[in-house]
């Protein structure tokens, strides 16, 4: 804290004592940088330790997913959406499948709806644990990374038993899901929750009482609510600004209207608040999963569909809540068996734009903390 105050006094623009004035210079950060969560590049204009201007450059992972979707049948697009956001493949599967179902006017059976909710919530846990690990790694703490990955592996084991894959699942299909889940899976899920829920305070104990963590996060990267609105910030990042906004409640899809859960909010909207919101969301996900265990009905898990089925001509937009925020899919069909246009509205694309404004005047070490706290994922941005 002392060093920080010293630097602030030394390099602040209002300091006209002339003790140490620095000239502006440009600093290139990325695309290969251990702290930028992938291949984000930031061209920073620096005045000493302080950022004057930041220009985020994306596109280093632009894999033309939207072009590929145009030359595949509706079913064949699902594995491509896996790669859209690899931390939560289920969610990106889900939003695409929902768009196709809305356009083709299909209603999945209730058991499939519950399985989808179970999978998305489990994936939210896996994604938040991944975020927790990497966020701490970037702030400089290595131990939480090992804690979170230990438990994330247990969630991945559950996925593996359901669909055979660890990371990219291709599980949520049009009209239902890939395979049914059995009672053993559900029991293992509850077993995992019983083991894992008491561990969440352990995660928090590693950071909450830590004075270094406090200094690095409290009051850093504050986003006022008006700024959130004009940029279109969504998900945990806007909830950290004190707004209880959640697509699961505002625009309920699947069976979320039958489930009870809270929307955690914080007021400060700084890095620490975003961390708190995500930790509390973990508990809400566990709560949803326990309700699904009680309520899941028996019955078919999918609709019998022709492989090359046709979707009537039209356009639609659906959106759901991903662990990062409001993810949407705009789908246009020309009446054939392939999408005419498939556009994904992704939360990270929105959040990276914010950095230009947000990083003005912060210190270099705070860039990592701020970037990590937004939970950006680059393939989702670049598509």
């Amino acid at each position, binding site marked *: 804290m002392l060093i920080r105050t010293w630097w602030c006094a030394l390099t602040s623009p209002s300091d006209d004592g002339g003790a140490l004035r620095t000239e502006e210079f440009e600093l290139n950060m990325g*695309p*290969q940088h*251990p702290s930028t969560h*992938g*291949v984000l590049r930031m061209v920073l204009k620096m005045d000493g330790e302080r950022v004057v201007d930041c220009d985020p450059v994306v*596109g*280093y*992972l*632009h*894999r*033309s997913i939207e*072009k*590929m979707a*145009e*030359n*595949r049948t509706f079913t064949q697009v699902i*594995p*491509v959406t896996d*790669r859209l956001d*690899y*931390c939560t493949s289920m969610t990106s599967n889900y939003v695409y499948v929902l768009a196709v179902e809305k356009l083709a006017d299909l209603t999945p059976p209730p058991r499939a709806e519950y399985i989808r909710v179970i999978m998305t919530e489990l994936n939210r846990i896996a994604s938040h644990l*991944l975020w927790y*690990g*990497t966020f701490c790694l970037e702030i400089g703490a290595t131990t939480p*990374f*090992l*804690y979170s*990955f*230990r438990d*994330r*592996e247990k969630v*991945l084991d559950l996925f593996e038993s359901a669909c055979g894959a*660890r*990371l*990219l699942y291709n599980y949520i299909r049009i009209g239902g899901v890939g395979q049914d889940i059995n009672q053993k899976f559900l029991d293992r899920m509850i077993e995992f929750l019983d083991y894992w829920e008491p561990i969440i305070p352990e995660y928090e104990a590693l950071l909450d009482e830590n004075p270094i963590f406090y200094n690095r996060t409290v009051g850093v990267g504050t986003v006022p609510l008006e700024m959130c609105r004009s940029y279109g910030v969504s998900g945990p990042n806007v909830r950290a600004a004190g707004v209880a906004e959640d697509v699961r409640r505002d625009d309920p899809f699947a069976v979320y209207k039958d489930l009870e859960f809270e929307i955690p909010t914080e007021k400060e909207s700084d890095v620490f608040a975003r961390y708190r919101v995500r930790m509390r969301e973990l508990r809400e996900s566990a709560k949803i999963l326990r309700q699904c265990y009680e309520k899941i009905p028996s019955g078919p898990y999918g609709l019998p569909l022709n492989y090359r089925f046709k979707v009537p001509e039209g356009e639609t937009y659906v959106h759901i809540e991903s662990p990062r925020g409001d993810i949407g899919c705009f789908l246009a069909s020309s009446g054939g068996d392939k999408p005419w246009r498939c556009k994904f509205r992704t939360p990270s694309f929105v959040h990276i734009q914010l950095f230009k404004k947000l990083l003005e005047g912060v210190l270099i070490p705070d860039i990592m903390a701020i970037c990590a706290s937004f939970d950006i994922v680059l*393939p989702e941005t670049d598509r």
Partner: protein
Amino acid sequence: MDLIKKIPAYVERIPNGGILMTGLDWVLNNAKASSMWYMLFGLACCAIELMATGASRYDFDRLGMIFRATPRQTDLMIVAGTLTLKMAPRVKLLYEQMPDPKYVIAMGGCTMHGGPFYHDSYSVLKGVDKIIPVDIHVAGCPPRPEALMNGCIALQDLIRGEKVGRKRDRPGLRHIDPATNLPLLVRPDTGLIRPNQIIMPDQLRVLS
């Protein structure tokens, strides 16, 4: 003493100890193979599996693999994920910044031939061995951590079989120009890319 039996060495016993005699190759290659430091360098989905391999359950450190954040301190580059044309010059630059001896593991389908992005993708480089030489390919989309560790063990075996002081016989780039024996990135009619040359995106656009 079981370990000693495995070493191709001659042990001469003298009072209060012994002298161990072995080949220089064996000592140097084992030193190289058992402390491979890899570059912390994630591109796409495979990077998450690379992180999982380094974390609690799979524990990459067992193989002597420790990540370093800068290319100057690394022996091994694990290309984890899809390489796009915009990113390709940077990866080549990173490879050239690594000190010799250096090794490359191409992880996942995307790095072999484009993987799921082979068809219909205009921006993905279809195979990293078009720009940097690759020693080991690990298949999968993404490969499981076990598969990646198997690839690393295979690489260690490869290193143990090397001869010190002799030029390494490595697979090299996929396209070698027979006339000049230089690696080819683009078709002969559109120009050559030589080793140690930084490629600009406009040159990459005419991939064969």
